[in-house]
């Protein structure tokens, strides 16, 4: 009985070790994918064997230093492949391709640190105002301090009016449509922010109407997609909220930054890859 228990725990240990080794191997293969295809065909298995042998005991993914070593190694081999007897412009090409590989690598952490902002656009169709000035007045109201301040109070986590102001944009479209768009890190947040501003705006407008004595007020709750709200002067005919989507400008900005970052790091690492050939041997 005792023996059987011990055997099964040994089995479990062995299985866990195998699992770790498998994960580690996959991690190394992902890094080896950075090497040129032709080089990989000849050397991938061989390098993997060395990596697995040299790997510290118990690790299930490549360490930072190992990863950096393989990335630099891949860049050096790429440079060597292109430098092999071909003239200078190819070397430049090698650096660009190295930069591209690094741009990709740099883009991944950058994109996860700074993901493209999500935007929710809520459209409000206003009843025919007598003059375009009315629509502009509504735009001004929707982006006014009191409206945003009230909205900011309802948003969780707490947000300052200034920061809400910088994330919310109110604009007028042809056909008496006013759009309120909000940007945030997640779709849910941007939806919440947009809804808060829309609700606050509707409350503001309706309370003004109420004071004017003509109001039928029904806006004291969050609006839902496609919901029709009747508010006097000006009447808001409908509220429709688009699904949150990444703003195209932010996607461009993030990937542009990634590329720029990649180009800079690429040039640096490319230089490191090239320099060692000229460094003299030091003896001690």
């Amino acid at each position: 009985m005792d023996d059987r228990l011990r055997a099964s725990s040994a089995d479990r240990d062995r299985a866990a070790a195998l699992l770790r080794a498998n994960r580690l191997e996959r991690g190394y293969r992902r890094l080896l994918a950075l090497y040129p295809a032709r080089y990989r065909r000849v050397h991938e298995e061989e390098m993997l064997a060395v990596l697995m042998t040299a790997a510290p005991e118990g690790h299930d993914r490549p360490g930072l230093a190992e990863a950096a070593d393989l990335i630099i190694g891949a860049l050096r081999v790429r440079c060597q492949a292109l430098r092999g007897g071909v003239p200078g412009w190819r070397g430049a090409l090698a650096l660009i391709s190295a930069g591209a590989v690094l741009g990709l690598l740099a883009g991944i952490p950058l994109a996860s640190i700074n993901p493209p902002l999500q935007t929710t656009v809520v459209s409000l169709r206003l009843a025919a105002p007598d003059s375009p000035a009315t629509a502009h007045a509504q735009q001004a109201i929707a982006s006014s301090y009191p409206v945003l301040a009230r909205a900011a109070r309802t948003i969780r986590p707490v947000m300052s009016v200034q920061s809400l102001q910088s994330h919310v944009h109110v604009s007028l479209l042809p056909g008496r449509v006013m759009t309120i768009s909000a940007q945030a890190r997640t779709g849910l947040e941007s939806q919440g922010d947009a809804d808060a501003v829309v609700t606050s705006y509707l409350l503001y407008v309706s309370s003004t109407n109420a004071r004017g004595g003509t109001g039928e007020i029904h806006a004291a709750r969050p609006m839902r997609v496609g919901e029709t709200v009747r508010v006097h002067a000006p009447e808001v005919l409908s509220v429709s909220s688009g699904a949150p989507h990444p703003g195209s400008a932010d996607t461009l900005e993030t990937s542009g930054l990634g590329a720029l970052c990649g180009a800079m790091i690429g040039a640096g690492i490319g230089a490191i890859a090239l320099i060692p050939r000229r460094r003299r041997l030091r003896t001690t």
Partner: protein
Amino acid sequence: MTESSLREPTFLILTALAAGAQHGYGVMTDVAEISGGRVRLRPGSLYAALNRLVMEGLVEFDREEIVDGRLRRYYRLTPSGGQRLAVEVDRLSRTTAVARQRLKLLSDPA
């Protein structure tokens, strides 16, 4: 290229292979031993260096083995690799001889 001196890792790799063919991991451990643990090559650096040495004709493939289901490829010095190492050793020993001589003058000015 052949005129300039060798980088230390390159020098150590050639030295490791001078004793006979070795596989990648063997070269890594040997380099660490030769340098007294001072130079520890990682796989990425080792293979980048080996690739260059093969391209320059200083090192060549020797043979392959499968050990525990894993591929081992052995490398050996080419004749020109051996020559290159010999040139480097001469150069270094001349330099160190001069250095030693001058150090002796320093400590023993008579």
